[in-house]
């Protein structure tokens, strides 16, 4: 069987349509619109980007989204790792019970937002529980989880949905690690933290980084959860874009596209980093 370079390249042709046509065209449309002037006569312009920097509501939206995305992804990866470690070290007989951690993966993001809302709102279930336990006297005393400026509700929804996903990724790497290393270390008297730090962590570090990037980029641009859960201000980037593009005059559409262009450029940096890491990971695996 001849495995020539050209045959290989021919293999790639089917992806020409989805990738070449829709994806590149889609990005092209966004870039074109972001730089096009109000009048068709004018050439490329930066006015929309200038508008974004000058409008305080748009600025806060961008910063807010970055913060939420960073926080959610970090907590999700950390939580997912803890989850994965727990699953990995569970006695075998109980492991099937722990499969419920996959529930958030099956449910769509929309429902994660809904669940967080009914559990964590000021008149929600958790607040009722706090009341029954005598911790609070009325709804006002329950901490402002959904609407306070820290937007804990958004983060909670994202973490609930994403930590099991991160756990899944970490587990798939953990299983390649020979458990006997841990067993040996513990038998030799190493503490839990030390074992983790020197035996487990180096093995899973790349997958933690790639998971973080995946989740960070996803949360940054995600629409579903803020659409169901979002407060009035500041808004997540996706909702700002949605409002500008679909609910206002056509004249402000380029602003939405400019925001998306910024998002695209920013994400591109992380995508490059992501593939650097996976290449190193693949190299290491091949060497082993």
């Amino acid at each position: 069987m001849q495995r020539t370079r050209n045959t290989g390249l021919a293999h790639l042709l089917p992806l020409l349509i989805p990738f070449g046509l829709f994806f590149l065209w889609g990005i092209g449309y966004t870039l074109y619109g972001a730089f096009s002037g109000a009048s068709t006569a004018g050439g490329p312009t930066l006015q929309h980007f200038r508008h974004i920097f000058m409008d305080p509501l748009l600025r806060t939206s961008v910063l807010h989204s970055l913060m939420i995305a960073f926080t959610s992804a970090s907590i999700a990866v950390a939580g997912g790792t803890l989850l994965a470690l727990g699953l990995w070290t569970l006695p075998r007989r109980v492991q099937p019970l722990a499969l419920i951690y996959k529930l958030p993966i099956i449910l769509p993001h929309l429902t994660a937002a809904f669940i967080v809302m009914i559990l964590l709102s000021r008149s929600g279930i958790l607040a009722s529980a706090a009341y029954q336990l005598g911790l609070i006297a009325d709804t006002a005393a329950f901490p402002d989880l959904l609407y306070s400026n820290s937007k804990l509700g958004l983060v909670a929804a994202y973490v609930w949905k994403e930590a099991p996903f991160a756990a899944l990724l970490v587990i798939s790497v953990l299983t390649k690690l020979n458990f006997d290393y841990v067993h040996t270390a513990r038998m030799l008297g190493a503490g839990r933290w030390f074992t983790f730090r020197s035996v487990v962590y180096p093995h899973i570090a790349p997958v933690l980084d790639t998971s973080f990037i995946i989740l960070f980029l996803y949360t940054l641009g995600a629409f579903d959860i803020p659409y169901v859960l979002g407060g009035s201000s500041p808004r997540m980037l996706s909702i700002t874009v949605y409002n500008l593009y679909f609910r206002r005059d056509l004249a402000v559409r380029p602003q939405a596209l400019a925001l998306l262009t910024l998002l695209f450029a920013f994400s591109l940096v992380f995508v490059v980093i992501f593939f650097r890491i996976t290449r190193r990971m693949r190299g290491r695996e091949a060497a082993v």
Partner: protein
Amino acid sequence: MRVKNRKQLAKWIPLLVLLAAVVGGCGQSGDTTAWLEKPYAEIEAAAEGSEVSFYMWGGDERINFWIDGYVAESLKENYNISLTRVPMDAAVFINKLLAEKEAGRSEGVIDLVWINGENFKRAKEKGLLYGAVAEKLPNLEFVPPEEIEYDFGYPVEGYEVPYGKAQFVFEYDSAEFEAPPRSFADLEQWVRAHPGQFTYPQPPDFTGSAFVRQALYAATGGYEQYQGAYDEALIKANEDELWAYLKTLQPYLWQQGRDYPQDKARLDLLFERGEVGINMDYNPLDASGKVLNGRYPETVRTFVMEEGAISNIHYVALPFNAPHVPAAMVTANFLLSPEAQLSKNNPENWGDLTVLDPQRLPQEWQNRFGQLDLGPAALPVEELSAAAVPEIDSGYVEYLKKRWEEELLQ
């Protein structure tokens, strides 16, 4: 190598076909406004066995249920028309129609839309609507023409068909509070006495917008000055009083006014869960309906403010590229019929007030409307009519929407 060449060729064919389609772009000759010339009997005959996609706001499941249930079943039974309701906000489907008009799409997917106010103006101005369909409909004779001449100050000219009347009311639980505020000045005292128990949906939500307009009437000396065409100088001269009033309320609102419920549904939820003490609605029979189906405790009551309760009419309209025009027109006519209006008015279904003038109806129907039980929580019709104040030009609506965000959210 033979295999490879053939495979390579095969890959290009679908791409070429696709490119040809883009370049060729053969448009279909869509439905022109020819239907407006034909007699209604012919339209009704053509509608038989057809289908309608009705795009409307989907935030109230009782309305949804009435449309999916009573309306769809009646249309099927009487005209063999299949009705599909699609939930979509007005601003979003207007954008969709705009995009379709730009792309030259002469046949779309939307047959009928629920529209009024500033959205109607935008749609009509950009040529997104089919035409003067209202005059063709037999049931229009039951509606007083002067009421449907202007929609938020913009001439209707038959481009939209009325189908319900709304009036802005407030709701509270009489078991929780002995007396509701009776005026906007009273409201200011009330929120001071009960901090965190009041809020309103954030504009551009329709209900939140209406609350701001009510506050405008109250804070700047009445609605009369705003009648007639949009006068920017007038609103600029008066707006400070409005913002001052809303800012006085702000620290005593839910979340200290730092955050507002995203939309009407969110406010409903807060009220139902007991997080706020006062709700507001464009449907005067909303409270009755929710008491009847168990979502509100029986002690909830409706009230209006001294400064009046804004009243308006909501409409349906056909988009310019509706694929099933006759069926859409028959549907609009049906919604206007006494049977449908009576069913709609019943708080067990939706509770939306009728646009029909009882004086123009046969006696039998006058009796049936008169005997309709409006439910335990509703205000009597006379009280509602006495309190009614009109809407103002949509230019003011847009201006206030924009300015509210700048004044109250910074």
